[in-house]
């Protein structure tokens, strides 16, 4: 029981980076822009967050900066794929490798690497927090955990209930249709790409500021790729993506605890688990042919207004 509570109360913290990254990816891809750069946005977010903590010590400032860093990097990506209509797969991969190099460089230059800093405090809801079992799991988390849930609700509201959401979805499903009704395809794609990348940047900031409280090179550790799988697994829907993130959070929170309880499992096997789960999820999704995969119809296609066709 003790083990269970300890494990589950750590799940939200592990789930947040997956959740926010998947959220950002969905926001971006619903506009029809294929985003393989998640790992890169995570890294710049984490880097900016760690830098802000080491120089100012303000978590609030660190998160804002992390989101802005993600957004700034995505401007480059948006320029490549929206204005210059470059291949979205290659541009996305470029962003990842660029971010890996850039963040390592910045960290080395400023001597941030492997310097720990104070992180984020858990919120205390008084009586609620004191509820046995549920208290520590649900009501003793840091602010970003609750913010994540709020951001999901906000995204669902925007996409389902507002005009901007309708227009972003239209741009992702049939840009020609959107264009002929006077919706600016480029504008909405920029909007989706940048706000999506800011969310992923925030996820990265949480990785360094909220979880590890330290910067190490390449610390995103493949979470960006898992988030992409998560998005596909969730068929580009928000709530299923959050559920999937919690599932991955469970697995990740389990990893350090398996050894702690003295189970004899090879370390690398445990570390491999999230990726095995990713593979299984992908296979499961592709086996289920009866449901629509949910992929936005225009995903990955640059939009050019048709001249003679």
């Amino acid at each position, binding site marked *: 029981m003790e083990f269970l509570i300890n494990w589950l109360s750590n799940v939200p913290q592990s789930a947040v980076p997956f959740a926010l990254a998947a959220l950002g990816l969905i926001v971006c891809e619903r506009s029809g822009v294929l985003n393989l750069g998640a790992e890169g946005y995570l890294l710049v977010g984490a880097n900016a967050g760690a830098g802000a903590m080491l120089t100012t010590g303000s978590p609030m400032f660190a998160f804002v900066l992390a989101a802005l860093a993600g957004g700034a990097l995505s401007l480059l990506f948006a320029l490549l794929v929206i204005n210059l209509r470059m291949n979205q797969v290659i541009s996305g991969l470029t962003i990842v490798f660029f971010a890996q190099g850039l963040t390592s460089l910045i960290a080395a230059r400023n001597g941030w690497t492997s310097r720990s800093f104070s992180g984020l405090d858990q919120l205390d809801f008084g009586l609620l927090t004191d509820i046995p079992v549920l208290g520590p799991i649900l009501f003793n988390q840091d602010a970003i955990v609750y913010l994540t849930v709020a951001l999901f609700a906000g995204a669902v509201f925007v996409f389902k209930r507002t*005009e901007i959401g*309708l227009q972003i979805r*239209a741009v992702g499903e*049939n840009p020609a249709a959107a264009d*002929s*009704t*006077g*919706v600016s395809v480029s504008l909405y794609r920029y909007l989706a790409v940048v706000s999506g990348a800011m969310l992923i940047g925030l996820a990265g900031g949480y990785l360094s500021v909220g979880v590890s409280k330290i910067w190490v090179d390449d610390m995103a550790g493949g979470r960006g790729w898992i988030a992409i799988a998560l998005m596909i697994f969730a068929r580009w829907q928000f709530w299923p993506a959050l559920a999937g993130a919690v599932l991955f959070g469970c697995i990740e929170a389990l990893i350090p605890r398996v050894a702690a309880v003295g189970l004899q499992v090879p370390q690398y096997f445990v570390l491999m688990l999230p990726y095995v789960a990713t593979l299984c999820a992908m296979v499961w999704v592709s086996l289920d042919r009866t449901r629509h995969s949910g992929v936005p119809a225009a995903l990955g296609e640059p939009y050019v207004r048709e001249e*003679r066709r």
Partner: protein
Amino acid sequence: MTSLSTTAAPISEQASCAATGLAALAPRALQLTNIVKSFGDYVALDDVSFDLRRGEVHALLGENGAGKSTLMNVVAGLYTSDSGTVALNGSPVIIDNPSVAHRLGIGMVHQHYRLVDTFTALENIQLENGHGNYRRSMAKLRDRTTEIAERIGFGIDLDRPVGEMSISEQQRVEILKILTADARIIILDEPTAVLTDAEADRLFTAMAGLAAEGNSVVFVTHKLREALTYADRITVMRAGKMVRTVAPNDIDTTQLTSMIVGETIVERRYPSSNIGDPKIVLKGVSQAGGGDDAPISDVNFTVREGEIYGIAGVGGNGQSRLAALLTGLMRHDQGRILLAGHGALDGETPLALRELGFACIHSDRAHYGLANDLTIMENFSVSAVLAGDFGSPFKIDKRRMRASTQEAVKAFDVRGVRALHQKAGLLSGGNAQKLVLAREFSRAPSIVIAHSPCRGLDVRAAAAVHEHLHDARDRGGTVILISEDLDEILLMSDRIGVMSRGAIVAEFDAPADRNAIGKAMTGHA
């Protein structure tokens, strides 16, 4: 420009008044003057002027590639004209963006609908009409759309995803989309291309209703009957130029045809004078698995050299499957296909058939006929390259390739070719088919398999296709023409087989009796 339009106006006014009566007296809703639009070196619109009156249904008539859709796209703001003026209700406007057209009350329904399949009808309509509070505007829009739909007699479920709707329902959504956006000028690009006659009739009844309310409707078409039946005035375009605006009562089909094509085209039967030995013999051929078409069983027929064998029948009776067998896309289960001088065919690949002298014109041009994203030169040369005509596979002689493509494009009169490295998908239907013909006939085939070669083509392009089929036959070739168009079969064939439920149920020697064939097609004689 202003002085030009004022001096030009009285002349056209007189001319059209005399010709068209009432419609011409109504005020001008839209006036295009001296519009020029070119794509690279290709002039799509050459000094075109056009006027649209309030309260009329106006047909814009012409062949494929005459510039009708281009002209309307200029009005809808998708293309910007190089020069010329657009005036709306008498005042000049600049429409350089679809949203401007939208704001000015110009709505266009494109030939390929611009709908988001996963959205409901109402969401699609909202996309065109968005402003302000989403929920409130959604509710208001629902009322408004329902009211308009009832007024013009469009029954439609606003909460169904349009992807699940029939084509004619989707078209209604498109029309409701522009009407709810307060369009006063309604442009329909080839609205009946995918409708049945009854659906088309209902559509035009609704459009006449809209016109009676003081709106203006333009529809783009290449069907004479439609223009003559449903339009108050008809404007004819040819090769990017405006020919004339007439009233349907003042003109007959022949005159109209000659205005459209620039000359009178009357195709005549032209029977073979030199029928030779049997070339291809099908004996008890059956095939069932795969594909959507009806299975075929026990198909027997013989086609001789110098002969066009027409296969008539209602679509879906096994013609596509037969075509697939004859072109090597499928392999027969039972029976024999004998080819003179070769023996039995047994699942030869399309490439092997090509080497045996086969040429194939598939009905699905966009899928099997051409690679739309490859250039015209590549599409033309692809089979010749394999045959080694342009040097070895490791070193292709581009110059020779270019020269022979150039020659073929000229010989087969493929128009709209701005450059040989332009994508084949940019050609209009008729010209794309001519490119297919140019490629298939460049090697003087001994057997031609043509499946609905004129589907979607205009009169002139169809006549060109027919001429090439006749040529192939006159050179001693064997032609199998599969077509659902009975007029085409009667015109072209030396002998006719009727296909029904997967078998050839009757054969006729030309000239055959149309009614007898019709009976065999439906009656399973």
